[in-house]
């Protein structure tokens, strides 16, 4: 069944731009990894120094994931509320503002224009444009919902997550005199995003997809959605304390952060259980095995990267040795990939064919892309992880100092560059596939299957 509301089409340019930025993000990842892996001459590394190439890698990640979420929201809201979007013009205007700001930020980094705070490097002037773009988005979505007068828990979770996300961003705006306070609020953006607001968005988009592809009744899906949201917020809000152990904040954060964040895997595991159960008890035939593969794969990967990897180093006695090491980077990659990269790709594989007017397509390239990216990310997580454990042991336990440890870790960064190249190929392959999907009479089939059945 193709789309029911013409305004859903605004989602497509969001998806297409997001996917192109994804490829660019990987290119910069490989450059900064090469800085680690090889002793490049000063003249070469100074062309694009690490501290301005890294923000390009991370800001592109955040930008494309957010564009993906926004596109997905524009796709989902009309179907959920039974009404076209309030304004497609505003949706396009918002896209232009946000992408324009993104491009300005990237050019700015090349010219060394920065606010100087990791992951939130974009300067104040551009922050204002981001806020304007976000306000247009919330206004557009909000007015659509108000006009439709139909409220569902799924919509509520989505809108709640998006408003929460936008409000938290405001804590990025001031200049903080005290370094400890600065990082205290930095985590209100970073942690409360990925372990709070974004999880609400993820839970809502997943619930929507599950209802669509499994036909499990809304009442059942939304009941579990409530429980998941409750557990996410219960563990995630006070769980922010797992970043306050070594910050110069009061000692009790070691207890509050340790206990609450140790519970954070619970809602993630519940989400896997929930998706698994709905998939097994589906009421309608499996229209697209690929979307099921992605949906279940995403739930499992979410548990591995965020739930398992996060749990291991959130315990204060371990975090004392791994804090701010490559162990953190390993977790950051596997968690972001498992939770939010796969979520976006799942949604794209569901929505893009429908936006183009069909539901059945050759799914073989999609499957290859899924396994190729997923296994490569395991390899990257392993390379970062081994480097991180070496670092924790040599630098911190033995006390040999930073550079001594780095020398022992270099081999693993060379492995990382290898996986990085594999990731670039896998991502380019998947992106090309999504952007060129064509209808085919049988879903899931390869060319061979087509011949057999016809």
């Amino acid at each position: 069944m193709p789309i029911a509301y013409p305004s859903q089409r605004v989602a497509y340019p969001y998806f297409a731009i997001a996917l192109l930025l994804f490829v660019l993000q990987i290119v910069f990842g490989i450059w900064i990894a090469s800085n680690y892996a090889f002793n490049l001459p000063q003249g070469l590394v100074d062309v694009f120094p690490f501290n301005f190439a890294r923000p390009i890698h991370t800001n592109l990640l955040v930008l494309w994931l957010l564009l993906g979420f926004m596109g997905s929201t524009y796709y989902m809201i009309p179907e959920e509320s039974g009404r076209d979007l309030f304004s497609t013009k505003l949706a396009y205007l918002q896209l232009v503002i946000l992408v324009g700001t993104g491009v300005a930020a990237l050019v700015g980094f090349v010219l060394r224009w920065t606010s100087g705070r990791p992951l939130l490097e974009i300067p104040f002037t551009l922050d204002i444009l981001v806020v304007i773009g976000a306000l247009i988005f919330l206004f557009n979505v909000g007015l659509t919902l108000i006009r439709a007068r139909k409220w569902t828990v799924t919509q509520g979770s989505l809108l709640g997550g998006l408003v929460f996300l936008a409000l938290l961003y405001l804590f990025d705006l001031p200049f903080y005199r005290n370094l400890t306070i600065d990082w205290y609020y930095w985590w209100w953006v970073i942690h409360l995003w990925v372990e709070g607001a974004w999880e609400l968005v993820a839970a809502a988009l997943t619930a929507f997809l599950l209802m669509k592809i499994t036909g499990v009744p809304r009442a059942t899906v939304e009941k579990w959605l409530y429980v998941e949201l409750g557990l996410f917020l219960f563990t995630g809000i006070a769980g922010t304390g797992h970043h306050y152990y070594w910050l110069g904040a009061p000692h009790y954060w070691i207890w509050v952060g340790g206990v609450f964040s140790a519970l954070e895997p619970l809602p993630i595991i519940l989400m896997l259980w929930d998706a698994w159960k709905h998939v097994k008890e589906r009421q309608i035939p499996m229209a697209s095995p690929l979307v099921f593969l992605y949906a279940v794969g995403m739930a499992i990967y979410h548990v591995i990267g965020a739930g398992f990897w996060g749990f291991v180093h959130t315990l204060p006695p371990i975090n004392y040795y791994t804090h701010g090491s490559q162990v953190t980077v390993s977790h950051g990659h596997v968690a972001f990939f498992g939770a939010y990269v796969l979520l976006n790709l799942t949604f794209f594989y569901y929505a893009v064919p429908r936006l183009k007017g069909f539901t059945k397509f050759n799914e073989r390239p999609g499957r290859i892309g899924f396994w190729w990216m997923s296994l490569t990310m395991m390899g990257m997580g392993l390379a970062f992880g081994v480097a991180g454990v070496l670092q924790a042991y040599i630098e911190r336990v033995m006390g040999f100092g930073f550079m001594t440890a780095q020398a022992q870790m270099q081999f693993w960064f060379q492995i990382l560059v290898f996986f990085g190249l594999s990731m670039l190929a896998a991502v380019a392959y998947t992106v090309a596939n999504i952007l060129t999907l064509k209808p085919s009479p049988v879903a899931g089939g390869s060319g061979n299957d087509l011949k057999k059945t016809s």
Partner: protein
Amino acid sequence: MSPKAARAIFYLGTLISLILFLALTVDTHRQVQTLTHADQLSDQVVSGKRVWQKYNCNDCHTILGFGAYYAPDMTKVYWRRGAEGIRAMVKNPELYTTWRKMPNQHVSDKEIDDLIAFFKWTSEIDNNNWPPQDAKLRATERKVVALGVSSGAVLFQEKGCFGCHKLFGTGVTVGPELTHVGGRLDHNTIEKILDNPRSVNPKATMPQIPLSHEQRDQLADFLTGLK
């Protein structure tokens, strides 16, 4: 589970966590005043923080363990390197970096003064003894100094000589280990080196560390005793 129970879990869970978190935030603001010695948070320290942000140092270095992981953590760099060690590194990194390079960012002298004030203030933040290697280093330095107890030994730690020299296996090896320096150099030469390293060895890269005549004398006394 009934839908009603599910909703109750949502409202209760969210509310409890939120109230706890906001209450602790208020208390944290109160306690951070003492934990970070906010009374010593001078305008110069704040200017130093602005310099830190202006050059985006934090996307190579971590501080308090946050940021990028490409270069050493800066939380306790003042303990490791001292004012002059930091100045030397930021002004002429090409002389001191090893195989992974820190670029020369042409930071002005005033900006470096501000940075040093910022790092000094940061090193005093009471953050549960993190990072472990610096906490350990400081503890052993104190022990090594206690063996000497002379005022020269105390200066050796306070002026950041450990940031480039080892004593009895503790410290960093940018310069030579000084455990037996008294066997190599006499009092006068050491004083000269401290006054101006290039006066003895024209190619010396050791920075000129501001010391009074008396301090130079005390340090030389301490070092000539090490044979």
